[in-house]
């Protein structure tokens, strides 16, 4: 992020400080140092950048937790698609297009309306049941992930406690000797 972006970099809330004067002095200072090339030719090195961890083998997130956000997104998409919508005919034909589309819509309404409506409502009901089922599966998976995380933490906690107890036992043995 460059320091020329619109939101302020500095915030001074102390009512005793003349904020405007201070910010002007800061801006002037930066400008003067820029003109004097004080920041150096390689100042890009000093641009904000987070340190990137190197993921060691075994430290990768588990497949299930890595996939979880995409499953969640898929479920949202599924929910959007679950409800079947009626098709409305349109036409790109110049001048006559609107009449052609109206005729097609009228024909479809007369010939297939009841069948179409019946099939759509059946399919929508099935889709919605499938979404509910997937959502429930995802919730259960989330609960399992939480449980696994907790158990992992519990194991580490118990390992640490065991190590402390072993140290105490070891120290006791040395005292006896």
């Amino acid at each position, binding site marked *: *992020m*460059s*320091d020329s*972006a619109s*939101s*302020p*970099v*500095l*915030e*001074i*809330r*102390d*009512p*005793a*400080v003349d904020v405007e004067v*201070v910010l002007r*002095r*800061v*801006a002037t*200072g*930066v400008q003067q*140092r*820029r003109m004097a090339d*004080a*920041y*150096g030719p390689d*100042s890009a*090195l*000093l*641009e*904000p*950048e*987070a*340190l*990137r*961890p*190197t*993921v*060691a083998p*075994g*430290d990768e*997130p588990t497949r299930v937790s890595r996939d979880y956000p995409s499953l969640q997104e898929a479920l949202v998409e599924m929910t959007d698609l679950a409800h079947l919508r009626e098709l409305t005919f349109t036409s790109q034909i110049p001048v006559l297009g609107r009449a052609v589309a109206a005729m097609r819509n009228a024909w479809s309404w007369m010939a297939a309306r009841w069948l179409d409506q019946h099939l759509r409502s059946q399919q929508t009901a099935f889709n919605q049941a499938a979404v509910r089922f997937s959502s429930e599966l995802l919730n259960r998976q989330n609960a399992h992930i*939480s449980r696994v*995380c*907790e158990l*992992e*933490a*519990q194991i*580490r*906690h*118990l390992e640490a*406690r065991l190590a*402390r107890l072993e140290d105490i036992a070891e120290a006791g043995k040395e005292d006896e000797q």
Partner: protein
Amino acid sequence: MRVHQLGHGLIPGDAISHHTLEIDRRLRAWGLESHIFAGHVASEYQALAQTDGHFHSFLDSPDDLLIYHYSIYDPNYRLFQKTLMRKILIYHNITPPQFFQGWDRSLAALCDAGRRVLVELRGCDLALGDSDFNRRELVAAGIPEEKTDVLSIFLPQSHFTPATDPDLMTQLQAQGTVKFLTVGRVVPNKAIEDVIRIFALYHRAINPRSCLYVVGSRYLPAYDTALDELVDELALNDAVVFTGLVSDTALKTYYQAADLYLHASHHEGFCVPLIESMYFGLPILARKAAAVPETLGDAGVLFTRLGYKKVAEMAHLLVSDESLKAQVIARQRQRLQDFAHDRVEAKLREILIRLHVLPA
């Protein structure tokens, strides 16, 4: 009336342990029977507290009160869930796990589990955050707003008494440099890399006679290596010092010798070093993130995003403009009064009266 406190550990030098002991002291002074239990009790505190297993014998005591200190995942949260007592949860915040992902798998797992378990601690009579930032996290975890409140922590008084390591002070003063200081565990959520880069700009463009002291324990080897490489890359090996964990006296010496406290942390539930900087009269320049703006109030100077050049220039004004420095320090000293023990004590008392633990 019996009041029990349960937590993860009771360890010397730990702010939450100190807070627990201070609460214990007040409970006793108010005529209540007080007990402390923790997952780990350091040998220094074994006369004052018991390990959490001993709490089992009190589980079915509906007339008692349990204060549960929650700061990291600990299986003893199940005792909090099981007990029939009235319950106060004190949430000291848990760092979001993403800060540790890729750096330390165990810590990330502990933080992840800790934050997930928070949702399961809703069954309490009152949930307290030690800052409003922490209180809001409790509300986000599903605790009704009206069941939450803020109780600031009892800051360790020993940190707020003057003391100096004369040898270290002589050594620091002999350098004749401007000294930036940052204090805390060297962990990714503290964004030490941003502190280093801001300092690098100041050192390069404004004042080459300057040093940065990073005071705090280093225990994430991967993160430590990345920071060492950054210092190397920026050719700051002679100007950036990682002190590691230091004694209380040495810490106070660094505060007294420093010219500016620079803090870039992304996540803090409270931030004790800001209060220590206020006490030692050190101007504060800190990132506006998490509980930091709340802890500072209208004191100190915040940076809202990283325009390093402007932040470095502001740092320069704070160390070189005596009148601005005096104004900032004066405001910080005023803010310090808000964290005085008597105010925390009054709030604790008010909470216990509200729960009918103490008479009105």
